[in-house]
């Protein structure tokens, strides 16, 4: 094992490869765990994208794997593209391929940490990370994630996808409006999963001591975005078209997923509490890429089950919710009990206050933090059911307006958050 850098340990073979490559301009990272079915397509898209758009740049493809047993790494090693039919003829620089296991807590964040470390050691100018389960990735994604870094002076590129109105509901109902209200930037997919960032930002990431927390798991996406925004990095978005990826079992580990994502969001709020209270309103973020309409896969939703979960929460978790929520917020949620399923509705204002109450309760440690976030699960399902009922019959674009409206409500109620949050330590941001 190589111990040159105390922070991240690389396998000897990987370290030797890094020494051999010495320096690169671009690095594209793909975290994986048992993605043999889909990763081949992703690797081919990356190879084609680098060949087509960055033929004269020294590029490295990194697969940071969590110990797959389905032959994922073999697929990565063997994936190749015939560039001729793609009219790519001027590929000059050899694409290096590093396939390495990552160390640390099993999760996407730990995989990214190895990618950041390799970016540092290779002194790259621009990086991109893409998920291994993508089915809609094209070579253009690499251009759109890397080009703003290399040629436009941006530090961080967030993805902008076209998604079904019920795809990414944690993003739509919590993370997007909250991030927008807190940090004043309208980054539509702050936890999109596919990002571009500068080598400088990669070094900043790897130097942070967060790799034993939820950031090492699903919390990595929002943490990267929040770190970029709060440290004053120049942020833009790139239009990537539809995001189609292999579905995960949606209900199997929802509360664990919430713990990881919301834990990272709330912890970042504490980390940057000298930054966000000073910001008011929000600004659009530059958007690159040619925008077009695209059909998205339909999403089946079981509203009755979500409402049942919310109502069971009202009945059984009342004592815990009383500790987390302001009395008037809880009362507003209790008032929904008399609504029929087809008219079930949690108003935007009530939902924004619910999220703000939970963030403040997390900050004040009114109860065990993992319990607190897990107890949010029925609340989140209730709000999602409300959104589904409200947007039934609307197109995804029309439903998007509801999400934008929610973002504005979060902004308007930010003073409520400040009031609930309590004293903020004074000092330089």
């Amino acid at each position, binding site marked *: 094992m190589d111990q040159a850098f105390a922070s991240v340990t690389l396998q000897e073979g990987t370290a030797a490869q890094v020494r051999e490559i010495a320096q690169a301009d671009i690095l594209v990272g793909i975290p994986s765990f048992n993605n043999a079915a889909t990763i081949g397509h992703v690797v081919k898209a990356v190879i084609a994208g680098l060949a087509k758009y960055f033929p004269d740049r020294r590029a490295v493809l990194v697969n940071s794997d969590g110990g797959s047993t389905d032959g994922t790494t073999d697929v990565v090693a063997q994936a190749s593209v015939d560039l001729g039919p793609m009219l790519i003829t001027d590929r000059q620089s050899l694409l290096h391929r590093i396939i390495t296991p990552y160390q640390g807590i099993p999760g996407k964040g730990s995989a990214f940490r190895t990618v950041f470390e390799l970016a540092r050691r290779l002194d790259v100018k621009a990086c991109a990370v893409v998920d291994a389960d993508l089915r809609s990735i094209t070579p253009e994604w690499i251009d759109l994630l890397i080009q703003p870094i290399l040629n436009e002076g941006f530090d961080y590129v967030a993805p902008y996808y076209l998604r079904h109105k*019920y795809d990414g509901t944690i993003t739509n109902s919590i993370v997007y409006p909250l991030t927008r209200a807190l940090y004043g930037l309208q980054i539509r997919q702050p936890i999109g999963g596919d990002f571009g960032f500068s080598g400088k930002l990669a070094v900043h990431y790897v130097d942070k001591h967060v790799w034993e927390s939820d950031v090492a798991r699903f919390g990595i996406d929002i943490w990267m975005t929040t770190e970029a925004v709060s440290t004053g990095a120049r942020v833009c978005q790139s239009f990537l078209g539809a995001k189609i990826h292999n579905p995960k079992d*949606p209900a199997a580990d929802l509360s664990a997923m919430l713990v990881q994502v919301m834990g990272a969001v709330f912890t970042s709020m504490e980390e940057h509490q000298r930054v966000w209270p000073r910001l008011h309103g929000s600004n659009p973020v530059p958007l690159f890429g040619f925008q077009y309409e695209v059909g998205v896969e339909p999403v089946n939703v*079981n509203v009755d089950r979500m409402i049942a979960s919310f109502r069971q929460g009202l009945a059984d978790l009342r004592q815990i919710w009383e500790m987390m929520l302001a009395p008037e917020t809880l009362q507003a949620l209790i008032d929904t009990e008399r609504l029929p399923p087809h008219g079930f509705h949690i108003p935007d204002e009530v939902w924004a206050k619910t999220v703000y109450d939970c963030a403040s309760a997390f900050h004040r440690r009114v*109860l*065990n933090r993992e319990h607190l976030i897990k107890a949010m699960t*029925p609340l989140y399902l209730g709000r999602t059911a409300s959104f589904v009922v409200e947007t039934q019959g609307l197109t995804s674009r029309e439903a998007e307006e509801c999400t934008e409206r929610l973002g504005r409500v979060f902004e308007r109620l930010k003073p409520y958050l400040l009031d609930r949050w309590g004293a903020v330590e004074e000092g330089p941001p």
Partner: protein
Amino acid sequence: MKEFLGTALLEPLATVGTRIVQFLPNLVAAFFILAVGWPLAWGLGRGVERTLRLLSVDRLADRIGLNAALTRGGLKPDPCHLAGRVVYWGLLVLTTIAALGALDLAPINQLAIHFLGYIPHLLTAVVILMGGIFLSNFVARATLITAVNGGFRPATTAAGLARWGVLLVALAMALEQLGIAQHIVVVGFGIAFGGVVLSLALAFGLGATGLSREFLERQFGRSADRKKDDLTHL
């Protein structure tokens, strides 16, 4: 007659007087220990209470769920006051034992030695019980949230069972520590706990066949009538 008076009456009186004179310093010492120890215990108890209040231990106790646990355990949710009282009564008991020891009476000395030897067991039992109460609250809350998130209808019952399970274990351990009917406690707990588990297994398997089938199907993903839901959250 004079000799009789001297031997039968005055000599015992003199002996008693001598003993009283000999015992007097012990009595004075005992009173002195009590006179100093009692106010000292009171002062230290108050001091501990005030110091803990200054250190905002109340808020900390609220955060970690200690107050809720105390309320549930039938105690006033004021840990600073409680700690102060524990210090006061602990010191008062020690002072009393020291005062009785100063009297230098054999039976009392014997009793004091036994009592002092018992104190570590008593303290251990108290710590085990307190730990059990906190752990039971934690486990009950975790069970409740997990059960609700899993759509398990009798979630509060499951949480209650989890709470009492942990409390019973703690109680059995505490009683064993106190040496109260050790074997009966261990065997009784084993029988009671085993009985509860067997009853639950039978109730789940026989009385709630539908529920158990649904649970197993959900675990192994073979539910045919489950309405499809492919909502993606991230």
